[in-house]
Every structure is written in C-alpha cells, then in structure tokens.
C-alpha cells in the first residue's frame, strides 16, 4: 500500500515538475513561482521514488 501511494505521489511530482514550464511557455505564471514549484516537485520525487525504485533496482 505504501509503495503504491509512493508511486502515485512520485508520478504526480513529475507532473508538477513539467506542468509549470508548459504553462510558462503558454504565457501563464511567473518564473520565480515556477522555480519554487519545480524545487518542491524535485524534493517530493527524491523522497517518494526511492521508496519503490531503490528496491526494484536491487532486484534487477
């Protein structure tokens, strides 16, 4: 259950990482705000992704 949640949250963090830059390209949002969202998404990714990817890597 924890792994499934971590997977979902990490995928959402990747979405949060790229969406602001797409919005910026479309003319929405300001750059300082985008930088903060990207940093937050980065932190979330590196907390949640190892929860399931680290184990998978060891198995492979």
């Amino acid at each position, binding site marked *: 259950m924890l792994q499934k949640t971590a997977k979902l949250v990490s995928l959402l963090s990747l979405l949060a990482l790229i969406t602001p830059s797409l919005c*910026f*390209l479309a003319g929405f949002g300001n750059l300082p705000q985008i*930088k903060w969202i*990207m940093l937050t998404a980065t932190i979330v990714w590196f907390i949640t992704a190892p929860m399931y990817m680290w184990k998978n890597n060891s198995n492979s």
Partner: protein
Amino acid sequence: MSTEEFSQQKSDKGSEFEREPVPQSSLLWFKSFVGMYAGEHCAGTELMIGPLFVAAGVGAFDLVAGLIVGNALAVLSWMVLCAPIATRARLTLYYQLEKICGRKLVTLYNLANGVMFCFLAGAMITVSATAAGVWFKFPMPGLSDLYPNSASWVLAVLVIGALISIVAAYGYQTVAKFANIAAPWMVLVFLAFGLIGLGQFITETCTEIHSLSDVWQLAETQIWKGGQPLEGKVKFTFWHVTFFAWFCNMAMHIGMSDLSVFRFARKSWYAVASGAGMYVGHFMAWLSASILYAYQLHLNPENTDVLPGPLAYKAAGIAGLLCVIIAGWTTANPTIYRAGLAFQAIVPKTSRFTVTLITGGIATVAGMFPAFAMKLLEFVALYGLLLMPMGAIVFVDFWLVKKFGLQSNYAEISGKAFNWAAGLTWFITLGVCGWLVQTGRVQIYFVSLPGWFVAALLYVLLSMVYQRKIRPVIGK
C-alpha cells in the same frame, strides 16, 4: 537498468561472463535496453554540447535536421554494425579484441580508452563545478579559457572531483542505483529548460505565436540564427551537426564498445533502443541547453561564457542547479569507474579501490582545465576517432576475413600476444587521419568516416602479409 547492472548478470561460477559467451538464461528483454540508453545519454555534458552548437553559429534547420539525421545514423550504426556481432559472439569487446589482437595490444587499447575516459570524466566534473560557482560566486572560466583562471575554481573542482572519486571507489553501486532514480526527473528538468527558454524568448521578443510556423520563425530569426561562429570556434553546418551526432558515441557503436552491452540482447534489433538515448539526450537535451545559451547571448551578446550552472539556475532555480550537479555526478561516476577498470586490466594486482581513486585524481586534475569542456565538440570527435579503428578491425575480422582466405581471431589461434596486422592498422589509420586533419584536408568531425574504410582495407591487406608470415599454431 544501467550498463553496470548488465555486467552484474552472473554465471553459476560467479563470473560476469568476461571470458565466456553469455548463455541463453542470462539474456535480457528489450525494455532493459531502453531504460539503460535513455538514462545514460542524458548526461551533464549535454549541457555543454548544446551551447557549443550555438557558439559555432549553427542555423535552426541545420541543427534540427542535422540532429534528426545524425542520431538516426547513430542508431543504425548500433543496429547494423555492433548488435549483430554482439548477439552472435556474445562476448565483451575486450575478450573479442584479445582473441583478434592479442593480450598486449588490448592492454594498449585499455590504456588509450582509460585516458580518454579520464578526460571525459574531467569535463563532467567541470560541468558540476560550474554549479558550485553559482553558490559561492567565484570567477569561472570563459569560452576561450584553456587553463584554470582562479584558485577558487581549482579548489571547487578539487573538492567536487575528490567527492566523486571517493564515492566511485567506495559506493559505486549505490550511485548507479541513485542515477536510475534520478533519470526520469533529470529528463523532465532538461525538457523544462527548453520550454522555459522558449517561453523567455517569446516574452522577450514579443513574438505572437499562433502556429508551429511562428515557433519555427522564432527559432530561425532569434534562437539559432546561423551566421558567424564566436571567436575561435569552427562554423557548424548541417553536415557538421549530422556527423557530430553520428560520431559522438562512435566508440560505442562503430568502435564496438557496446558489444559488452548487446551480448545480453535476445535479438540484434534491440539496438533500436539506443534511439531512446539519442532522441532524449542528444536531441531534446541538446536543443534545450542550446536555447538557454542562445537566450543568454540574446540578452547580452558580450556574455559568451558557456557555464551550465548559471544557465540552469537562471532558467529553473535550485532544481536546475541540482540537475547540473546530479547530471555531472551520476555520469562522471560510471566514467571514472570504467576508466578504473580499463587501467586495472593493465595492472591487475592493484585493487579496484586504489585504481579508481587514482583514476578519479587524474580526472579531477583534467577537470581543472576548462579546455576539455570548452573544446568538448573537438574532444568527443577525437575520442571516437581514437577507438574507431579497433571497431573496424572487429567488424572485418568477424564478417570478412574468412572470405579472403584468412583466419579470424588470429591472435588466439596463433598464440601471439600482439597481432601486428591489427596494431599497424590502428597506428597507420590514426596517422592518416591525423595527417588529413593537420593539413586541413578534412575536419576532425568528418575524418572518422574515411578513416573507417582505411582501417578496414589496411587490416585485410596487412593480415594477408602477416598471416602468411606467422603460421597458426593449430595449423601446424
């Protein structure tokens, strides 16, 4: 799955199939190769290469079309030249070379390979050090700098290089696992660089975008404008970009290094997976990084410094800086490790730990000299050229020599430790290519193409003479 995890596939005896063909039970599926190539070719050095294209005065069509064609040729080289041999012989490049060239010549090859890996890792450390410069605000090297330009720069490279080397020596596998986790995030940060850079151009130039043709017009008139290259740089055309994209991994495909990877593939067509690395790392990432640099030049044409740290920070803040550090670190780590393996093959009694530390030390010293990073386009071309003749020898030995009535794997059969036909082929080919470049007849970006044919022809001719002179042991 990383390259090193491929090598972790073990036999019952615990070996990594270094001196035996990979058995059916250890073969891998297509997915493993896609993951490996996508992760490995999105490296810190992409942040240097993209801007250097802009510094070389490349035009939009030349860059985009050149990258599409060049990367396709690279994928075809893996599919047509490398993988078919790998899936038939299922041996590492080193063992295959030992059978053809003999142990002593392979030692020389390892030395050349190890040295080039050290310099490449040095360029990656340079890239990571530019991120430290954003935090600590020390003077960083300019586009035309070849030597370290400040004590603080040397200190930054020393600290980062030492950290990377110690980690590579102690916890190499841990970093390899971390690199796999970072890969999807890193690819998206690279994409974000491009999208943000494009957005900045649109805002700055007040361009109205209604269709893709508007984007293309912006690209042609503002981003990749063509024209004269920056001072000291060679003008890049469609052909330069095509050949650079094709040959920048020449050591791996035409040079046959990736025999060691594709020996695990069930089918040779799995080599199409290399396209994931080419079109993510060598297309999207190069374009993204080049947009950031073009924007820097657009704002201030005097600021020609190619510094991935500040470029990434301006576009994506701390996340961008982390991307530069992680991209440099995770790719310098396996590069130092591989260089260490190549050197350890020369001095097998020395521990892998010591060799990796010494190798990291050499890479760190190389990283202090910005020449390797600022002249990365030329260095990468030289790297491919240096190892290419051995790839031609493997190809000819596997497919063609028997058709000329010659023995393949001649060193193994004759018991020779140095196959002079292969050795002379390597040296003469490099001599011919060096002469062509030095006399200005062919630029270094293109010379490997005629060089491959020179090597193939020489190997056949020299083998005819050499094999007549040295009779095989088996034949006696």
